[in-house]
């Protein structure tokens, strides 16, 4: 069973939120900085065309924690549950743990089931996730890892049970699953969502536009902080993602000087803007330096390209020259080969002519002499036949010798 289901099951128990509603002394470093929630809500409201106060509207009556009237001092924060309950009591105001309190809580950093159920019920009332965001920021400052882990676990369960993160892809992002979207996509998905139409949001019909704007920005911040914490994303990078997903001004508003000036002068937390601007400035400086380096590199590269081009041209000319030489040599070789073939054919023909002529002559003369010998062996011997044949053979052979000598 998931945490959210547990939480739902445990909601049945009445939550005595009033017990922790008042900020215990020493437990909360209230700080003087104005709440970022308010500032963001103002930005969001401005984006949507209004300049109304960005503070989230009051939660509905049934969701309001019951606080004991007249109790000036609240119970001291002795456990993590107390701290979380206190945070919910402050309704999204800035909270942090003093070192002493932190030390105290660290003795019992776990949340038991009863506490968890009670706190989950409180979390259900935090529709705009303002408290979750503050808890997330508070968790960043906690040095005790066990305590930090417990708080983060609680926040995780709060986020997972919130309708803003009900989609599969955002759950995957929260769970850091490999199939989940990357940071930029996840943040954009949260920022793009139209919460006014999300029926899963409790008391949706009673909410006003600034509430949804606050929900959008808090949800984005929560997810950004969650991802920064769980994935170790640096603040500069996170600022870039936030700019892309949430902070980018409305194109219409960005063109109207009046709106721009209004928005710029209504910034409640110049520190935050300063940090963002500084981040971007640093980033821009880095990019500018990189661009300068790239320009120099480009100039060098262009010079190299020119040099290489001229080298290529030179090599091409050399290749052409060599190819021309090769083709000349090939032609010469082909001609030489043909001449050789022709010469070979002629020599073969000459040889065959000579061979066949001499062969014929010898055959004829041998035949003649053979016949003469046959006549000589007769009884009585036909000497005149032999003499005739021998003379004819000798005459022919002499003729042949003469011809061969003439050819020399």
């Amino acid at each position, binding site marked *: 069973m998931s945490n959210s289901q547990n939480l739902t099951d445990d909601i049945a128990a009445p939550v005595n939120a009033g017990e922790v509603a008042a900020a215990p002394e020493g437990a909360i470093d209230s700080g003087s900085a104005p709440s970022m929630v308010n500032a963001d809500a103002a930005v969001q409201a401005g984006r949507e065309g209004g300049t109304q106060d960005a503070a989230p509207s009051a939660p509905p009556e049934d969701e309001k924690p019951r606080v004991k009237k007249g109790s000036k001092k609240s119970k001291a924060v002795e456990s993590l549950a107390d701290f979380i309950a206190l945070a919910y009591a402050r309704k999204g105001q800035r909270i942090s743990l003093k070192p002493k309190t932190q030390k105290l809580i660290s003795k019992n950093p776990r949340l038991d089931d009863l506490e968890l159920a009670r706190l989950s019920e409180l979390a259900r009332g935090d529709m705009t996730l303002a408290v979750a965001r503050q808890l997330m920021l508070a968790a960043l400052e906690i040095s005790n890892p066990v305590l930090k882990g417990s708080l983060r676990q609680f926040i995780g369960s709060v986020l997972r049970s919130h309708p803003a993160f009900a989609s599969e892809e955002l759950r995957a992002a929260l769970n850091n699953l490999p199939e989940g979207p990357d940071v930029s996509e996840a943040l954009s998905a949260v920022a793009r969502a139209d919460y006014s139409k999300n029926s899963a949001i409790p008391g949706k019909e009673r909410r006003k536009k600034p509430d949804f704007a606050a929900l959008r920005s808090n949800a984005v911040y929560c997810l950004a902080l969650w991802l920064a914490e769980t994935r170790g994303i640096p603040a500069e990078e996170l600022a870039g993602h936030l700019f892309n997903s949430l902070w980018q001004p409305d194109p219409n508003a960005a063109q109207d000087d009046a709106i721009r000036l209004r928005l710029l002068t209504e910034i409640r937390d110049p520190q935050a803007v300063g940090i963002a601007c500084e981040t971007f400035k640093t980033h821009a400086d880095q990019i500018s330096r990189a661009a300068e380096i790239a320009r120099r590199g480009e100039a060098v590269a262009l010079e190299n390209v020119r040099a290489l081009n001229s080298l290529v041209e030179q090599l091409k000319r050399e290749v052409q020259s060599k190819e021309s030489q090769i083709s000349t040599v090939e032609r010469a070789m082909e001609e030489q080969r043909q001449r050789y073939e022709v010469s070979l054919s002629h020599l073969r023909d000459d040889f065959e002519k000579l061979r066949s002529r001499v062969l014929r002559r010898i055959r004829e003369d041998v035949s003649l002499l053979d016949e003469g010998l046959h006549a000589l062996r007769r009884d009585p011997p*036909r000497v005149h*036949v032999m003499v005739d044949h021998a003379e*004819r053979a000798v005459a022919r052979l002499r003729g042949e010798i003469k011809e061969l000598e003439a050819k020399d």
Partner: protein
Amino acid sequence: MSVVGFDFGTTNSLVSFIKGGRPINFLDDEGMPTPSVVCYEGGRVIAGREAKKRLSESGLGIKGNIVRSPKILLGRETVFIEGVEHSPVDIVADVVKFVCQQASSGRRGRDLGEVERAVVTIPVNMEGHRRAALRDAFRLAGVSIVQFIHEPHAALYGFLRSEGDYEATLRRYDRKLILVFDWGGGTVDLTLCRLIDGMLVQVANDGTSEVGGDVFDEAIKNEVVRRVYESRGFDETVQTHPDAVTRLLHRCEGGKIDLSSRPSISLYVPNFFRGVENEELDYTLSREELEKVTKSLLDKGIGRITSLLEAAGVSTAQISLCLATGGMSNMPAIKSRLHELFGPQRVHLSERSGTLIAEGAAWIAHDGARLRLAKHVELLLARNSAMQLIKCGTEMPQEGEVRRDQFHLYCADPRDGHAKIQLQSPARPGSDILSNDRRSPLATMVVQVDRAARPFTERLELDVEIDDNLVLRAQARSLVKKHMDEARVHNLEFGLALPSAPGACADDDSEEIEEQPIRHKKGSVLLRSNVADQVDDRLVPGELLYTYNPTYFDRRNDPPQMQLSECTYYRPCDGCGRDSNDPLCHCDPTGRSKTNHGPSAKRGKGYEAANRAV
């Protein structure tokens, strides 16, 4: 593979081709061409020298189971060899196949490869249907004939190409008469050629197989046998061994050559006679005896030269070159007789006389020299004028090509219901033919036409084509009567166009022939052509034209005298209705008809005057 020259000779065949500007002859192991002989022994086909060894007698044609010079059989449907029916085409194909196989498989064969295409030599008198049969035979042997070439042309071209300076040689013999004298083992062929317009054309030719080299050997052998029989007192009952005559024939062949350098030779054949005590033949043959035996043959052969020159009206002094080829040309007696006739300077006895024709064919294949028509092919038109159908110098089609042309004509005189279409050719070659030069008819076609039609009404079509066998086929059609006639001419005369010859003849348009009467031999019966290539009343016989157009003969129009005379001569007498030359006509020659004018005024006795005019 290059195109080879193929001399398919009467006695010997030879393949030759040009490599590196020199002819290579594919001779056999003994340096001799392949004999054109084939022997059928049972199912075996023996060709070449092996078949020749089996021959015991001279002569051409079928000798037992041996066929010598099979090309002379071409043109016949079938022949019988020892009772077995053979096609001459198959017999020739057997020889061709053997010659090609010998050439390819011989020691020089690696220079040749497979013989696939050839320029083939043919005798001058080989006509179209025999050429077609020869082409079929070569095709059967796997060789396609690129072009036929006449043997004397090939020999002469081989001679011209073998001369050092080809161009100078051509200039030297330009427009001169050259006699090619080919005395081979089987035949004597004589051709008188002239180099006209860069084309080698034959002026006259003659040939005989009566005095071939083999006949000499046969005559010597017979004389020797006769004398031995006589000296030994044998009668005809004394038999010889079966192969003895063949052996003696071969000895006579060798002895004939030796007698050119010796006063006598001894002919000795052991085991010649059968059933007598001394079986050997021993005879001493002297040069005088040889000359005596061969004199008549020699005279006959040389006599052919003089008779040819006489027939052509040429004296020996006009011959600028006598090119002697063939194996017999080297016989001293023949040599000396040629020298007597022409003088040693004008006689060229080639050392390569046995291979010159094949070499010439190979050079023709190598140079791409083409056959061209030596004489115009003309159509005889009405009034004895001539129209050129195919001009002299027209390139003849090569393998697979056909040269076609179509002509549209009119019938000028359809009264007999026939249009007479005669193809003719001038008697002398060349393009500068005069209109009154003598012509010889080539073929005549008669096409039925509508006899009731007026002159020039019925149109005629004439298709003329020459195929790669150099056969001219003409087809005439009448378009109204729809009748057709066809004729083939197998004896067209061709010349060989010499590449780069001065004034080489091309397919140029020569001038129209003037309309002058053509000279004919005395007493010859002439066809009166009644076709015309244009509508012209002058071409219509006078008497016919008169029936359609009497006003034509009005003297004020100055009608041609010929037509007036025809009208006068051929129209019946207006007075008595008799023929104009009927002696019974006594009508008044000056009498005039009431209706007829002009020519009818001279009817009756007036025909005599008109007849004189005709």
